[in-house]
């Protein structure tokens, strides 16, 4: 993976930095299975790579309960994306109390090249932000 590994990279950097009560879940593709992780959760934090026209490495942070930016809605071919999963979770009543979504603007996505330096730094910043969020929520 290239910069599109930003989400899993954040998970890697959270290991042993968040309480045991925090579940670190990697999700690829179909987002409906996230509904089960949200059920009965207090706080859900989602991190994904985005391409919305911003500078590579810039970090977006939004309140997931307040709607999803249209620029982040993907044209999935036959999967339920994150935006649709949130809508579905709302319809069946399984959303968490609080949902924070981080989007990391990415640059290169060639396979096997790893994170570019600006994305690597953004991943560190997001991981640090999540540690603070978990501490504050606890």
């Amino acid at each position, binding site marked *: 993976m290239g910069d599109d590994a930003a989400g899993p990279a954040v998970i890697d950097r959270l290991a042993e930095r968040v309480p045991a009560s925090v579940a670190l879940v990697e999700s690829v593709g179909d987002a409906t299975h996230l509904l089960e992780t949200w059920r009965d959760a207090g706080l859900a934090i989602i991190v994904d790579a985005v391409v919305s026209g911003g500078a590579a490495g810039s970090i977006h942070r939004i309140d997931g309960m307040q709607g999803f930016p249209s620029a982040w809605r993907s*044209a999935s071919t036959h999967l339920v994306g994150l935006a649709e999963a949130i809508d579905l979770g709302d319809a069946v009543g399984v959303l968490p109390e609080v949902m924070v979504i981080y989007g990391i603007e990415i640059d290169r996505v060639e396979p096997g090249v790893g994170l570019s330096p600006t994305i690597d730094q953004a991943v560190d910043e997001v991981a640090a932000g999540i540690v603070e969020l978990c501490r504050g929520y606890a």
Partner: protein
Amino acid sequence: MTNAREISVEYLARVEGEGSMRVKVVDDQIEDVEFSIFEPPRFFEAFLRGRPHTDAPDITARICGICPIAYQMSSVHAMEDAFGFTVGGSLRELRRLIYCGEWIESHVLHVYLLHAPDFLGYESGIHMAADHREVVERGLRMKKAGNDIVALLGGREIHPINVRVGGFYRTPTKKELQALVPELEWAKDAALETINWTAGFTFPEADLDFEFVSVCHPDEYPFNEGNIVSNKGIDVPVSQFNEFFTEEHVERSNALHSRVRGRGAYHVGPLARYAINFEKLTPLAQQSALDAGLEPVCNNPFKSIIVRSVETLYAIEEALRIIDEYEEPAEPYVSYTPKAGVGHGATEAPRGMLYHQYRLHEDGRIADAQITPPTAQNQLTIESDLRFVLEQHLDLPDPELTWVLEQSIRNYDPCISCATHFLDLTVERV
């Protein structure tokens, strides 16, 4: 005066060039029907050249987020065919089991969230969930039962990483598999409810003359092994795929169209599998299908939603059987020595037969790859169905006509199912 009526549907994803539907009617005569799709596997074929054969299962799994197991299974069977060995015993059973998981999650997603809204008059599964919360929750829970199988055997739910040529990197313990049983037992009852639910929908009339094509095994409903069989006389080993089927470039579309050589369109997917393999379903699945009003052959593509529900029941029953009889294998994979050659694999993806062919160098690197996905094979049939639906419903206003046209595309659970929920519609009258 000429009355031209043109309906074109372009996906929101048109920026990616994914696909489109366009029909043109002049003076109540259908002048043109065109259904086009984007075919990502074409890029993967080039991408595979020069790579180790061991990369194929993991790379081709990336073609599809909802049927990665199909790509992994077709690729490993093709490699094993090239190297001249087969995988039997518990490893073979585990391959059927992981395919059961994929059918369950894929079929349930399509039945509940993508196709049922068409029959119940909702714009999407999300809109449907607002009025049918319990039903959608049942579907989500059933889907999770499938996801759990794929996650256990594949290492994770999406783009699994535990499948390899010769078997698996790690095989599960009996205890791990047994842990899946209670939820699968619940899902079996839920599948019966699903069949009853879908059988109660109202279906447009259709009795079409399809050439059904499916993998067919003498003893079992097909996942991974068997001849390629059609209801119009084809019965050949997988290695003869290209002798009986061909892909042709059509000038107006940048997608290849598959045909039976010397004939034309053919139909792969649940309806085809069901028609060719009905007697290999479990007794309960057979009886449930008949109770739902299906004959052993169903020629109404709109009823594919019932057949998908029947196949879901079958996959759950088959998963329970495999788990019950499972014995842990001595080794997680069969050892082998790569050699130069050509290998073929055809397995049954949820949406139809998926054919892979690889030519391999002496050291096992991939020289050439051919991947023929089910949606490409169904493309001509989908166009033919669209023409039929147009003829039957020309009197409908454009919005209703567009609805039933989109519904007929979704009969095939094509790789654009979700995208067709995000359509921009243009109606042009002259």
